[in-house]
Structure formats: C-alpha cells, structure tokens
C-alpha cells in the first residue's frame, strides 16, 4: 500500500482515539466527574503548613513547632437531614468545648463556599480528640486536622527579637491577600519582632486534600493532595550562648538595681534595661536583649484578652523592645560626634589643649553657666583626655565654637553622617528613627530659633537629641572600624525546610565616612575611648582594671529632668575591633551601672570567664567566627 495512505490512516486512527476518549470521559462518565468537581461529593480539606523555625548562628534551635490539632466543620459534608447547629450542640454535650464558643466561631467564619472548612476550635486536647474520633458517626462534617503551634524552646529568651504571633486581623488579611499571599481568617501571623518582619518567609503555603465523600459525609477516597509547603527557617546572627549570658546578666543587674532603689529612696528605680552586641565586621547582631519582657508561651495558643490587657497596660511596658523602640538622649556618648565635627571643622587635634578652670562654661552674655559633672575644675587637659574624662566644659566650648561658625547646622550634619536620626534598618519592625534637632526642626516644632545654648547642650548629647541603643551600637562600630559600619542585621540566612539556602544576607555598608573624615580623627577618638577604660582617670576604668583584652568605650549619663539614663558603648579588642557593645539602663541613674555589664559580656565573649548556670565555658573561640 502507498505510504502516504498509511499515514492518512494512522492520523485518522489517532484522532478517532482522542475523540472517543473525550466522548467517554465527558459524555459517558461526565455526570460522575461533574459531581466530583462540583463539591456534592467532593470536599477540600486543608492541610496546614508548619511555620518556619528559628535557629541561632550555630544551628541551635530557638523556636520550633509542635503538633497541634484543630477542629473544622465541612458544611458540604453535613447530610441534609442534619444541621450545623445540631452537630455543634451534640459536640458540646459530649466534649469540653462550649457550645456558645463553637457557635460563635461558626457564625463568624467568613467562608464563601460550602467546600471551605470552618475553623471551630484550635489546639484540641487529647480527651476531646478521642471523643470526636469515637463519635465520628454522629458528628458528620467535623474533621480534626493536624496543625502546628509554636514551640518556644526558651520561652523567656530572645523574646523581643523573636516577637509574638497572633490571629490575623481583618486589615492584615486584606492587605496580605492583596499582596498575593494566601491567608485565611483564623491563621496565625507574626505580630512583632522577626515573626512579623519575616512573616512571608516564615509562613508556608497551605495544602489541601481533595476527597470524595459519600452521601453520609464519610470519606470514600482521596482524589488529590496538594502538599503543604513548610515555611522557611531563619538562621540568625545571634550567638545564643552569648545571648543567654547577656540576658541573665541584665536580669540580675536590673533586679538588683530595682531592689536597691526600693530600699534607698535617693536612688532612681530603673524601668528597663537593654543591650546590643554587634559584630563590627558584618553588622550581625550577636546578642540583643531588652527587659522587662514577657513569656512567649502566652502567645503560642493565642493570647487571652485578659493576659493581653495586662501586658499592654503594664506601666513598665514589657512589649517595648528597648534596643530599637526606645529613643532617649545618648548624653556623653555623643561627644564622639561632637569630637569628629570639632576635629574636621575647627582644626582641633588630639593634642590640642583645653583648660577647665572651675567646672563651668559660660556663653558670653548668657546668665546661666553650663556645668561639668565634676564640680571641681580639672585644669589643663588635651582633647584625648577630655574624652577620657568626659569633660563637659571642653565639649561645651567646642559646641559653642561650632555654633559661632555654623549656627545650629554643623553638629546635626555630623550626627546624621553617623546615622543618627534615621532608622538603622535593622530587620525588626517598629524601629524608631530617633531625632537629631537642628534649626529648622526647632522652628517647625517648638516655634523657636536655634540658640547658642542649644548647640552647647547638643555638644554633650543632651537636649532634644534622641537615639536608640542600636543606633549607638552603630555609632560605636563606625568609630571602632574608623569610618565604616554595616546595617545591623539579625537574620543571617533564610533556608527552606529542606535546608536549601533561600536567601543570604550579605553585610551591607550603611555608614561610610572614610572619604569625609580623616583617619586621624578616628585615631584620636579611639584613643580617648581607650583611656576611658584603661587610664586610671578614665570614667570607666574602675570596672575594667586588669581586664585581659584591651577594650575601649564611652560612658553616658542622660539627664531627662527625672531619673537619669545610664549608657555605655564600647568595643574590643582595642587593636583589632571585633564587637561593639551598648548597654542602656532606662532611668537607671548613672552610667556606672552599665559599665560592669559590658565588661562581663566582653569577658564571656573573649573566653575569660567560666559561667555557671549550667553552661560550660565553650566559647573560647567565639571571636573566630
């Protein structure tokens, strides 16, 4: 036979097969498949995706998940002779679940179609699960589904950075779904901290099981499964051992100071304490703590409204992360900025000498003198020593000179160069940007011009200037690294549930002053900071005597009208800076209390101290990472 004819026949044959198959599926079996697809006999049951886990930089798990069981009602699986109300009533009679609550959840559900599951109850306990399973036949349409809930390995550690979770609210639901994500009412989402910042990474994608059910609502078989996708895991820059030591230290000091204040009415009562340890070479946050805090387990199952009210009405504001959400005057730590401006703009050098005759500085034609913290005149001192002694008189004078040359602008300009007044863009929500006051700010906010006294006040970090601890960590880091610092970053890496790297956060330069500020300036500032800690006359030397690593730092006591805030910002080792530390005590009275905390952290970090509380001294090599 002619080959061309054979080809024709083959084509006809193939098309006949295709057409017959289509006719068979659509005409012969059409009704069956139609019912399957229309939901009369098909049901889509959700399969929840576990939230991503959180690990520290060494892979120690900090936040995980555990199995939990949710109860759903599938309306389309309820047989016609029964009703949802009847089933819920039966359920409430035999289980511990209250009918009113079940009915409320049922009515509040916003499902568009009968094939969507309605979440009736979360985190069933074992007894109820057994009861529901045993009474399956009289409770059609009820399904118990695996879900996951947060399992906080250390529910009282790294609380603020981790952040809490809670049920999605209406605005979130709308906005997330508009952004193309697939959320449903009743879902748990991050409400604070990393849980919020990385919500779309942590949240996986829900799966579904399509099943065929019979007329009594019983599952006949599985038709299809869309597997859920687990959320991505966060690998932090946090060194969890360091974090634990830091938190224990803060807690110990915070409680001690509060006890002392209770006994002695002259002492101020601290209302909060916070500290940040940052890797100078990367901006990675090695430890970050803020007290008071709360117990993360309060939120794991959804917080009760009474617990929540208690938390937000607590006058000590435990929900505030004081490392990023509290901005107060940095006080004398700001002298690093004033010093930079003075050296760059006024020609001050490391050995430029100043004279403090009586501990006061007066602006010509200005009645009230500005005082040093030391009521006695300190005599002749050079620029470096002025930093070490934190001598206000010298810096008042510099502030005034800057005012004479540039009015209110120059100092603010340098503050901005160091990243003050703007968010550090640390990967945490609700960060405060702080405030650097200048002439135009004062005019539009206080309706006043910029006075010489404002410059003088600003020169020692007082007045309207506001900074967060993490901004100060960034400032210290910039000085330590002689002009460069990186964006503070908690998350180092994001990994898929299978361990594949999804995203790596490379260090990102945030501040670079190398072209604008002479190396000599940083050398002088660092020398001053070195002397703060290492010279007998330094303001922090008492706590750093015979310290085995050469450290450097700057103290600050911020006057607010009420109790003073205590600051210390430091770095170590002096010759080869690796970490920057900031300790901040809100209403703590003086910088004196923050210095020993910084010292202990450095000791631990560099491996010079064994720590009790069950932890071995294993971090001798911490700094090599």
């Amino acid at each position, binding site marked *: 036979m002619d080959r061309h004819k054979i080809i024709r026949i083959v*084509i*006809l044959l193939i098309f006949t097969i295709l*057409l017959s198959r*289509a006719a068979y599926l*659509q005409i012969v079996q*059409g009704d069956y498949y139609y019912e399957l697809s229309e*939901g009369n006999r098909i049901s889509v049951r959700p399969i929840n995706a576990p939230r991503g886990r959180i690990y520290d930089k060494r892979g120690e798990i900090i936040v995980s998940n555990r199995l939990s069981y949710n109860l759903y009602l599938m309306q389309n699986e309820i047989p016609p002779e029964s009703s949802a109300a009847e089933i819920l009533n039966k359920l409430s009679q035999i289980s511990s679940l209250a009918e009113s609550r079940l009915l409320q959840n049922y009515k509040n559900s916003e499902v568009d179609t009968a094939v969507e599951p309605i979440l009736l109850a979360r985190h069933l306990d074992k007894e109820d699960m057994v009861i529901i399973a045993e009474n399956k036949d009289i409770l059609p349409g009820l399904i118990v589904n695996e879900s996951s809930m947060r399992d906080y390995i250390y529910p009282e550690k790294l609380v603020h950075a981790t952040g809490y979770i809670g049920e999605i609210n209406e605005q979130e639901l709308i906005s997330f779904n508009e952004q193309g994500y697939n959320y449903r009412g009743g879902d748990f989402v991050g409400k604070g901290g990393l849980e919020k910042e990385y919500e779309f990474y942590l949240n996986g994608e829900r799966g579904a099981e399509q099943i065929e059910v019979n007329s009594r609502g019983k599952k006949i078989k599985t*038709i*299809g*499964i869309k597997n859920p996708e687990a959320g991505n895991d966060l690998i932090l820059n946090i060194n969890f051992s360091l974090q634990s030591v830091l938190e224990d230290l803060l807690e110990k000091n915070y409680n001690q100071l509060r006890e002392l204040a209770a006994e002695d009415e002259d002492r101020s009562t601290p209302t909060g304490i916070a500290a940040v340890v940052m890797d100078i070479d990367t901006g990675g946050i090695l430890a970050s703590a803020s007290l008071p805090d709360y117990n993360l387990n309060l939120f794991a199952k959804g917080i009760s409204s009474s617990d929540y009210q208690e938390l937000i009405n607590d006058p000590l504001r435990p929900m505030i992360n004081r490392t990023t959400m509290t901005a107060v005057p940095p006080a004398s730590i700001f002298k690093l900025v004033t010093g930079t401006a003075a050296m760059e703009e006024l020609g001050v050098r490391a050995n430029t000498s100043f004279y403090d005759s009586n501990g006061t500085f007066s602006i010509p034609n200005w009645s009230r003198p500005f005082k040093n913290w030391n009521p006695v005149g300190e005599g002749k001192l050079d620029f470096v020593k002025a930093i070490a002694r934190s001598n206000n008189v010298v810096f008042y004078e510099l502030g005034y000179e800057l005012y004479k040359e540039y009015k209110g602008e120059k100092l603010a300009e340098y503050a901005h160069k160091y990243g003050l007044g703007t968010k550090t863009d640390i990967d945490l929500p609700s960060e405060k940007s702080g405030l650097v006051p200048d002439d135009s700010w004062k005019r539009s906010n206080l309706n006043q011009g910029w006075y010489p006294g404002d410059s003088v006040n600003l020169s020692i970090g007082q007045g309207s200037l506001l900074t967060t601890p993490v901004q100060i960590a960034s400032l210290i880091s910039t000085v330590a690294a002689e002009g460069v610092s990186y964006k503070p970053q908690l998350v180092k890496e994001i990994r898929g549930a299978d361990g594949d790297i999804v995203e790596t956060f490379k260090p990102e330069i945030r501040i670079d002053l190398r072209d604008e500020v002479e190396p000599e300036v940083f050398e002088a500032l660092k020398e001053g900071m070195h002397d703060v800690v290492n010279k007998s006359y330094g303001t922090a030397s008492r706590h750093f005597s015979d310290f085995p690593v050469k450290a450097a730092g700057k103290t600050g006591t911020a006057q607010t009208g009420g109790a003073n805030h205590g600051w210390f910002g430091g770095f170590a080792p002096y010759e080869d800076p690796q970490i920057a530390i900031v300790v901040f005590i809100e209403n703590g009275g003086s910088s004196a209390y923050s210095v020993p905390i910084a010292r202990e952290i450095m000791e631990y970090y560099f491996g010079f101290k064994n720590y009790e509380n069950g932890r071995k001294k294993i971090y001798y090599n911490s700094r090599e990472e």
Partner: protein
Amino acid sequence: MNWNKKFLRYLNFNVPFAVILLILIGFISISSAVEINQAGSGALRFLQKQAVSVVLGLLVVFIMQAFDYKIFKQYAILIYISMLLMLTATLFLGQGVSGGAHWISIGAFNLQTSELSKIMLILVLAAVIDNNSDDMGYLKGMFLPSIVAFIPFSLVILQNDLGTALVLFFIYLLMLFAGGGNFKYMASVFGGGFLVIVSTITAHVFFNTPLPFLKEYQLNRLIVFINPNIDPHGSGYNIIQSIIALGSGRSFGKGLFAGTQNQLNFLPEKHTDFIFSVIGEEFGFLGTAVVILLFLFLLWQFLSIAENARDRYGYLVMIGIIAMFLFHVLENVGMTMGIMPITGIPLPFISYGGTFMLTSLTAVAIAININLRKNKLMF
C-alpha cells in the same frame, strides 16, 4: 525574492482559517486559565506576551512567502550547523527550571531553542532524505538521516527536555517512513528499541534495576498515566485533576470562567500544558470535539498540500510538519485525558508559550509557501 501574484490563486484558505480559529480558542482559554475575570490576577500580561508572539509569527508567515522554499534545501547545511550551535549554546549558557537548561534570554524574550530545533530538523532532514532517495531502501541510505537526527536529539536530551526529544524522534520516524526508509529495518530497530525500553522500565519498577538516562521523576511522569493511583500525591495528581476537569465539563461545559477545577486552581500548569483540560471543563465535549476536529481538518489540508507539492523536498518537509503537529496534539491531548504519559509539551496554537507559537506559525508559513508554489497546475 521570488514572488508571483498568480501564487495567490493556489492558496488553500482552509489553512489560515483553521489556524486563526485555533489561536482565537487559545486566547479565550488562556484568559480563563489565568483568571482574567479575577481582579489582580495579572492575566493581561500573559495575553499581551502571547499576542506579541502571534504578531511575530504572522510576520514570518507573510515574509516567508517572498522566498522559494528551495532555499531551505540549498542552505540545509547552514541551518543544521546553526541548530547545533544554538542547542550547544543553550546547554552552556541557557537558563531553566528544575535542572534543565531550556532557554536563552534575548532581551525580554526567553528563546526556547529546542522548540526552534523542531522546524530546523524538518528542513534539514527533508534535504538529506531527498538527496539520498535512491538509497533509502538500504541501510546506507538510512544511515545519514539517522545521524543527522541523532545529534540534535541527544543535545535536547542533555537539556533534560524529554518532551521535545520525543517530538524530534517522531518527526524523524515519520519522515524516514515517508521518505521510503526500509520498513523491515525500521520495524526491527525501533520495535526492538521500544521493547528494550519497556523491559528496562518494567525491570526497574519491579526489580529496582538501575535506570539509564531517565531521572526518577521523569520515569514517574512517564508511567503514572497507566495508573494514577500509584502516586496520587505526586505525578498522579495532575492526571486525576485533569480528568476530573475534562469529564466534569460533560456535553456542553460549565461555561467560560465557570470551571471549578480551573478556577479553584486544582488544575496544574493550566495555561500551558493542561489548557485542553480547561477547554474540556468549560466548553464540554462540544469544545473538545471542535478542537480535535479542527486539528484533524488542518492536518488533512497539510496532507493534500504534501501530495500536491512541487517536488519531493516539499513533500518531505510537509510530512515533517505533519509529524510535529500530530505528535504534539496526540501527546498533549492524550496526556490530559490520561492515555499518554506526561511529558509536558504544549498544544499547538492554543497553549501559552511564545517560542512554540512562533515555531508553529513558522511551520504554517512553510506549509503555505509549499502550497503556493505547487507547480502542477501552473500554466
């Protein structure tokens, strides 16, 4: 240039008619598959890209009529070399998903080189077979075409693109047959090969013997259609969902945008590989029958163009084009109905995808060229 107004008299209008109808059906189905009825679906982007490919393809259809198709034979070697270069370049420079390197980015376009290689192979193979026509009944005549087809076939396999490789193989097979290849040899080599493959796979499934060439997931996709329930969560899922979608359309369909399988996203890859399921669900047997019959109608026109071609080269090119479309339709439609393995090749003129649309319209352009230059009736 080689153009004569008289050519137009020979135009088989059924070809453009069928093609345009299929493309229109494609646009409607893609609109539904990408949920153009839902706000914020970003669906327009798909339609725009598809429209750009259609316009480019139609330009090719018009421009190509200015040349005589014999130039493809004259420059066969050049075409062949550029095809090999293109496929090799894709292997090294290409980008792709899930372990395969399928396309090269040219500006905003991702050019899937393996798609273009289908047409190029047809043009080259026709030349080689035509030149060897006296020897085609013998092994020595079949040797060169086989080598010519084998090299691009292997390169496409290396790209991990099993679907296109099968298309190339089918083109080769049908052209060899139409070109007078020795049937006994073909039956024993390919029949034997088929047996070897089937027994290797059977042995792998039942005795877990090692599997050459294929990756596990490719094998799963290949054999799961025999019984989707062996893997209802993975490869079987697509087939089950597709069959429910098609079947549930019954005689007249659920209506445009009303397919629940489609709109609830239970259908996988619905604007590309599984577009036929969308048509089946929303337009029922009426829709599927129209599409199947339109393809049959189009291939029938191609067969008559082939018979009336001016020369043997034109005939062979037409057979290659027929083979390409035939295999695409059989494989794609068969896959959605659960009678062919899942290999992920698109439905011509209908599936979303720029390069294949361009390839298909280029094939149509060549078919029309051959149609216009039939000389039997030229006086």
